[in-house]
C-alpha cells in the first residue's frame, strides 16, 4: 500500500470535512429586507456572513416577516426560510473567497436588493475575525432597503405603496456590500 505524506492529511482531522459534525453555530435572521448573522457561541453579530473553510457549520434559519430564501449560488445550495419556524441547515464551505448570498423567495419590494456577502476564510483568519468582532460596539448593519426608502420619501412621485423596511439590524460588524466578489 502506498503511503503518501501530506501536510494535513484528512485522517488527522477526521475524515472528509463534510462528514464531521458542525462545531460552529450561526443563527440567520431574514427580514424585509436585511440579513443578520449571529454567532451565539462567541456573542458576535454581523450583516456579512463569515465562515471557516472546510469546517461544517450549522445554521438556524428564521424569518421575522415573510418567506425568504437563503441562497448562495456559488455553493449551489438554497433553503427556504419560513416565518414561524426555525430551520436547521448544515453546510461545509470548501473554497476560500468572497461570495454572494441572495434572497431566493419573493419577499416584496426590495427582494432583489436583499443581498450580502459570504466570506469563506482560513481557520486562523476566522478565529481572528470573531475575536476582533466581539470587541466592537453594536452599530447599524447593511440594509440597502433602508437607504433607498429614505431617499424615496423625498421623491415627488415615489411609486406605488410599499411595506416600510425593518430598521437595520444592530450588529458588531456591518461588513461591506461594495467589494468585488468571486461569485
Amino acid at each position, binding site marked *: 500500500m502506498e503511503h503518501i505524506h501530506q501536510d494535513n492529511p484528512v485522517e488527522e482531522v477526521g475524515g472528509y470535512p463534510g462528514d464531521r459534525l458542525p462545531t460552529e453555530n450561526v443563527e440567520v435572521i431574514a427580514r424585509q429586507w436585511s440579513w443578520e448573522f449571529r454567532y451565539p457561541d462567541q456573542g458576535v453579530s454581523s450583516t456579512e456572513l463569515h465562515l471557516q473553510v472546510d469546517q461544517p457549520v450549522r445554521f438556524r434559519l428564521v424569518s421575522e*416577516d*415573510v*418567506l425568504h430564501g437563503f441562497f448562495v449560488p456559488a455553493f449551489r445550495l438554497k433553503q427556504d426560510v419560513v*416565518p414561524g419556524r426555525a430551520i436547521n441547515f448544515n453546510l461545509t464551505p470548501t473554497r476560500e473567497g468572497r461570495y454572494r448570498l441572495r434572497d431566493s*423567495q*419573493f*419577499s*416584496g*419590494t*426590495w*427582494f*432583489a*436588493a436583499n443581498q450580502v456577502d459570504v466570506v469563506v476564510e482560513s481557520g486562523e483568519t476566522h478565529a481572528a475575525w470573531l475575536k476582533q468582532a466581539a470587541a466592537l460596539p453594536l452599530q447599524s448593519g447593511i440594509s440597502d432597503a433602508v437607504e*433607498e426608502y429614505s431617499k*424615496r420619501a423625498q421623491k415627488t412621485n*415615489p*411609486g*406605488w*405603496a*410599499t*411595506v416600510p423596511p425593518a430598521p437595520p439590524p444592530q450588529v458588531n460588524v456591518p461588513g461591506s456590500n461594495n467589494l468585488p466578489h468571486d461569485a
Partner: protein
Amino acid sequence: MTLATFPDSEPKPSWSRYFSFNTDAKVIGIQYIVLAFFFFLIGGLLAMIIRGELITPQSDLVDRTVYNGIYTMHGTIMLFLFIFPVLNGFNNLLIPTMIGAPDMAFPRLNAVAFWLVPIFGSLLIASFFVPGGPAYSGWWSYPPVSIQNPLGHLVSGQGMWLTAVALSGVVAHRRGVVWCVIHHGGGEFRDHDHPHASTGDDLVPDAGLLLDCIGGPEPPADRSACPHGWRDHAVI
C-alpha cells in the same frame, strides 16, 4: 308540372353577434380568441416595460414597487386573460366539429362563462388605478407577502386581484363542465360513419384536472359510468 321551390336562404347574421350574448360555440370561440389577443397586447406592453428595466442591472427605469406590480400583472394577464381564454376559444371552435356535435353541451352556460372574462379582466385592469397600485406579490401570490396591505385600505390591488382570479376559476369550472359533458354525454352527436375520426377525447383529462384543481366533481372515468341525466341534458 310544378317546380320545386326552395325556402329563401336565411339572412347573413349580423357582425354585431360577436358583441352580444350569443350561444353559438363558433361565435363564442371567436369572442374568446379576439378578447384574449386584446389582453395579450396589454400583457405584452407590460413585458416591454419589464425588459426595459432589465436592460441594466440597476433599478433605474421604474420604481421597485412599480416593477413588482407590473411583473405581477403581466404574469396574471398572460395566464388568466390570454392563455386560458385563447385555449377556450380554440376548444369552442374545434371540439364540437371534431366530435360531430352541433354545439357545446350547455350553450348558455358556455356564453355566461365567456362573458365573465371581460368582467374579471376589467376588474383586474382597474386594480392599476386604486390607491397603492395593483397586486405586487407575483402571479403566485404566496402569503404572507400577499396579505401585507401597506395602505390598509379595504379595496386594495391585491384584493381586486384575488376577486378577479376567483372569478376566472368560475369560468374554468363552467368550461370544465361543458367539456366533460360534451365528451361523455355528447356521443349521440358523434359521426358514426367515421368512428375512428379524431374525437378530441384527449382534452378530457385536462378538463378533469381543471375540475379537480378547484374542488369540483370528478368526471366519470368512462362513458358507461356517466349518469344518464347528463346525456339527456346535453341537448339543452
